[in-house]
């Protein structure tokens, strides 16, 4: 169906055909200038988020274009994390209403973690069966699973909401996690590609030693595929962490509200006239932080996997 078979683990073989030994030509200078502008436009908003988060809400409006934080303060972070007193918060333009940030953080960690664990584990099992085992109807089943990639999420999410309601799972962790827990066609497709590339001899050697499929899978295939499995886990974690629509439907209650939903609520509650911008930016920064940290730690893996994930 889709033919992007790029090897994700291999470093991209990006030879740069335009790279010449000669010095800078006007064209190259112009090209670099373009690239630098794009990168600046990409990164500047992140700086602005930080700069605003470190500003004082009451004086921010007086220096809208100051490149540095206005009236530097950690106050916005303190009130988002629930460390500031009511007076402190109000003195810096916050509302003083509790944000329950730690609850939302816990919910996001838990929900994204469970979804990732389920998708990767069950995805790996299924991918192995599709790649390395022979059974009747295998290719047909695989094709049917892949068609699920084309179905727009909203189409299944309306009825899935009713299912969760009928099961009494609205506003529970189970309700947030279950629809994503058992499968995503992407995980199956992604890992199958790697399992297809593993040499038969390794399995046959294991077979001779008396290992069955289950043992071969856990003892040999999984350890061998640790790279792609981590990459998949990263991609799915980031996606689950960022998900908004489904948690909005089934996780609106405070006790199970995730960070993305909380940010939406936070925004909706800020007064129209004078929103607590530093507070909002501190909250968005903290909500983005786990992904930024994963990015710093595993940036290369994530970047290398993009050519592959084109099937998404």
């Amino acid at each position, binding site marked *: 169906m889709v033919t*992007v078979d790029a090897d994700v683990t291999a470093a*991209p073989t*990006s030879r*740069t*055909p*335009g*790279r010449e030994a000669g010095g800078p030509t006007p064209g190259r200078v112009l*090209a670099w200038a*373009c*690239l630098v502008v*794009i*990168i600046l*436009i*990409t990164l500047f*908003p992140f700086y*602005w*988020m930080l700069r605003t988060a470190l500003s004082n809400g009451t004086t921010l*409006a007086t220096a*809208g*274009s100051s490149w540095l934080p206005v009236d530097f303060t950690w106050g916005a972070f303190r009130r988002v994390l629930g460390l500031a007193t009511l007076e402190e918060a109000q003195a810096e333009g916050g509302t003083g209403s509790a944000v329950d940030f730690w609850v939302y953080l816990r919910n996001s960690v838990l929900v994204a973690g469970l979804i990732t664990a389920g998708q990767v584990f069950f995805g790996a*099992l*299924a991918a192995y*069966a599709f790649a390395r*085992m022979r*059974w009747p109807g295998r290719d047909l*089943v695989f094709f049917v*699973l892949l068609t*699920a990639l*084309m*179905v*727009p999420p909203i*189409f299944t*999410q*309306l*009825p899935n*909401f*009713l*299912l969760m309601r009928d099961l009494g799972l609205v506003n529970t962790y189970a309700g947030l996690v*279950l629809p994503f827990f*058992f*499968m995503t066609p992407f995980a199956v497709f992604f890992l199958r590609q790697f399992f297809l590339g593993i040499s038969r001899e390794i399995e046959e050697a294991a077979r001779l030693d008396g290992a069955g*499929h289950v043992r071969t*899978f856990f003892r040999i295939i999984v350890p061998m595929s640790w790279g792609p499995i981590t990459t998949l886990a990263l991609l799915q974690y980031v996606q689950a962490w*960022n998900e*908004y629509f489904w948690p*909005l439907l089934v996780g609106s209650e405070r006790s199970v509200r995730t960070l*993305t939903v909380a*940010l*939406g609520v936070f925004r909706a509650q800020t007064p129209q006239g004078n929103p607590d*911008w530093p507070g*909002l*930016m501190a909250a968005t920064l903290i*909500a983005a932080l786990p*992904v*930024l940290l994963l990015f710093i730690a595993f940036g*290369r893996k994530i*970047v290398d996997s*993009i*050519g592959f994930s*084109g099937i998404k």
Partner: protein
Amino acid sequence: MTTTAVPAAGAPASGAPAIARRASSNRETWVALGFILPTVFGFVVFYLWPSLRGLGLSLTDYQFFSDTSFVGLANYQRLLTDETFWNAMLVTVWYVVLNIGFQTVLAVLLAVLLHRLTRSVVIRGLVLLPYLVANVVVALLWFWMLDAQIGIVNQVLSWFGIGPISFFGSESWAIPTIAFVNTWRHLGYTALLIFAGLVMIPRTLYEAGRVDGASEWQMFWRITLPLLRPVLALVLVITVVGSFQVFDTVAVTTMGGPADASRVIQYYIFDLAFERLDYGYASAVSVVLLVILSVIAFVQLRLMRANESDLA
């Protein structure tokens, strides 16, 4: 088992391996079923069944709290004269056109720049950064930067004597603004998909082009772009299908306003189902969205297949 015509005396000897093989392939089938069971369960319960149920619901007047009855195609008839629906369609198409326009042109430019200038994973990582952050975070960030009073963008525009522009608050700006914000988020991702396509173009073609005295510009139009067509088609399928489902940004910033100017189709479905509790009708609209996206995907994948030979 084709070796059945064996002498009676030889039967035990040559029959045994066959039986053993059949038994082992039977066992393999059972193990395989065990491996794919969770995935198939997830597919049936959270993809297949909801899809059928969604189709069924679209033929009813389901409204959560009142009796439900079968209404046949009434919901679809209602669509034909529902001005809000047609407006939502129009708004969505306008958004898709703008978003795809910005995104494709910029992404090709960025991908070519990356490909020609540098093999740095760090730079590729930097342009990908916005893609890893949640839609909600991106929406809030730009909501602040584009604020009509003290947002930095309007501050900068005022230095040039422009504005202030109420980016999210005016009917004509709302959709272009949302298209721009989502372009900012997706640009790096799309560029890296195209970059993966560029890497596959054989270097020798450029060398041959250079020998023939082709300029960079000519090589781009004569070599790069034609060979990129299949990848571009795939990227277009992904981005068109994705941008038809824009929701998060709208939900966080404009909530469909002002005056329906940004009420995109997915937000309309959400609104119908969960604000107006008109679930049956919302299901019908989501079926229409499914059909539209399927047609787009089908047509574009066919186009891609027609062009596949280019890279062979």
